[in-house]
């Protein structure tokens, strides 16, 4: 294992110190329990938008804390959900009197820890669970679809709604609408190594790729020979399009995400192919996001996310955002 770390045990808190040093104007980092909070929290009269999850997916979630997105993020250990006291602490640090919305990715541990946090928090707390990963085919006999790339879009759009003063009920309804309209799928060319484990999470031969991966270095549904970029994009896009389904005339946001170890040159290459495939089907790409925003440590790979847009989602996507990882309109 070669990593830029001092000690596997303190990776998360050491990285949080660096985030605080890098963004003193935007973030206020608390260490016990670990919570990344907007520097100007609590925003009075505004619904607090809170998320969290295992570390190792940076910039998700801490990099999305700031005006127009998250009020707080709760970083767990690498690939491990945060604990209820972290989430409850985030609620009390950010509640400006309008309640808090917890954005939870659908993983067994995350769901249970956020559920317990809701039970112990003093404020009015609601939660939504995002499960946009079409790679999980059989929801009945599994823990259900995972929350992946759609989480970034959800946090941006609901964060903008809270920023313009929407009520907790309105934020929940909007979040449910986004969750119902977004689908994702990912692939890996390499595994990744969790610092406290020290060995790769799975073995992939040089000529193999794993289709349908999650974001925790877990294997996917299917292992196939590495193909061309066009074949890879189709392998991700086809199941997404069939699932919602997306059809000719739909307006969409296309999010081409890197898993951490794939360079932007490859992401742009893939993004161009995806745009062309969508245009061929008469699907109108109205907004885009390209880059590593929800990652799996140093894994090489990518995911595609499609969100079916309406006018309100477009205007909320365009609304000002000022966070370490996303910034426009300010």
């Amino acid at each position, binding site marked *: 294992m070669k990593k830029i770390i001092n000690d596997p045990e303190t990776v998360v808190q050491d990285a949080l110190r660096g985030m605080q040093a890098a963004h003193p104007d935007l973030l206020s980092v608390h260490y016990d329990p670990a919570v990344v909070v907007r520097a100007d929290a609590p925003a009075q009269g505004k619904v607090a938008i809170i998320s969290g999850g295992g570390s190792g997916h940076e910039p998700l979630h801490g990099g999305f804390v700031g005006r127009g997105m998250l009020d707080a993020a709760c970083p767990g*250990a690498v690939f491990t959900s945060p604990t209820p006291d972290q989430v409850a602490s985030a609620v009390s640090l950010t509640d400006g009197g309008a309640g808090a919305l917890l954005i939870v990715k659908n993983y*067994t541990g995350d769901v249970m820890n956020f559920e317990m946090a809701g039970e112990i928090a003093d404020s009015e707390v609601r939660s939504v669970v995002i499960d946009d990963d079409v790679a999980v085919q059989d929801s009945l*006999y*599994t823990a259900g679809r995972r929350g992946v790339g759609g989480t970034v879009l959800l946090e941006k759009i609901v964060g903008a709604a809270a920023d313009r003063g929407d009520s907790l009920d309105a934020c929940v309804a909007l979040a449910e609408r986004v969750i119902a309209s977004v689908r994702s799928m990912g692939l890996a060319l390499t595994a990744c190594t969790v610092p406290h*484990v020290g060995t790769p999470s799975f073995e992939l031969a040089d000529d193999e790729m794993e289709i349908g991966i999650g974001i925790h270095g877990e294997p996917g549904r299917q292992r196939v020979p590495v193909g061309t970029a066009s074949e890879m994009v189709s392998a991700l896009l086809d199941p997404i399009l069939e699932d919602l389904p997306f059809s000719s005339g739909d307006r969409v946001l296309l999010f081409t995400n890197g898993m951490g170890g794939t360079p932007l040159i490859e992401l742009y290459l893939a993004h161009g192919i995806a745009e062309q495939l969508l245009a061929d089907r008469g699907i109108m790409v109205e907004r885009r996001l390209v880059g590593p925003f929800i990652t799996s440590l140093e894994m090489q790979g990518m995911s595609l996310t499609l969100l079916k847009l309406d006018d309100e989602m477009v205007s909320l996507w365009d609304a000002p955002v000022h966070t370490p990882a996303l910034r426009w309109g300010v």
Partner: protein
Amino acid sequence: MGCTAADVVAALRLAAGVIQEHRDELVRLDQAIGDADHGENMRRGFTALLSRLDSEEATSPGKVLKLVATTLISTVGGAAGPLYGTAFLRASAAVGDLQELDCDAVARALQAALDGVVARGKAVVGDKTMVDALTPAIAAAASVDGSVAAVLSAAADAAAEGAESTVPMVARKGRASYLGERSAGHLDPGARSTALLLRAFADAAAKA
């Protein structure tokens, strides 16, 4: 003679040592079908528990169990934190203010722990989870009429068998479920840690 608060603390110290010894094994089991964090999460939780047991005095078995619950909930994370946390919290409530636990109280605590795990995680027997170790353990404990050590020993034996029974299962809960058929052929790490804990409790009771 029943279990006092000091006996429960001694059992937990033994259990913490067992978890530390088996940390790498639990990581490997979880690496095969999950996300490789179970061993490290459990080690972190039980290490934190040891320092709380050193610094805080709990005056009844129920209070010790509650201390375990709050420590694990706030330090373990993942699925294991809420599940073991809820288990110990329910066990604590089940024994109330009793100063000593007899075998009935121990059986009651075990049953409450299982009920808590099922309520929190919604798993049933056959889903390839800790429920597959805990359920037969509780049945075995209820069928034994004897000392606390005998009750826990029967529970530990049944839990070990229950854990082994997860090997051929296809996971239907937790992160292993994403693997579908590829999850078969592996021991469930949560079932394994449950069996390890019950064995440690039984060993401690036998020494007491």
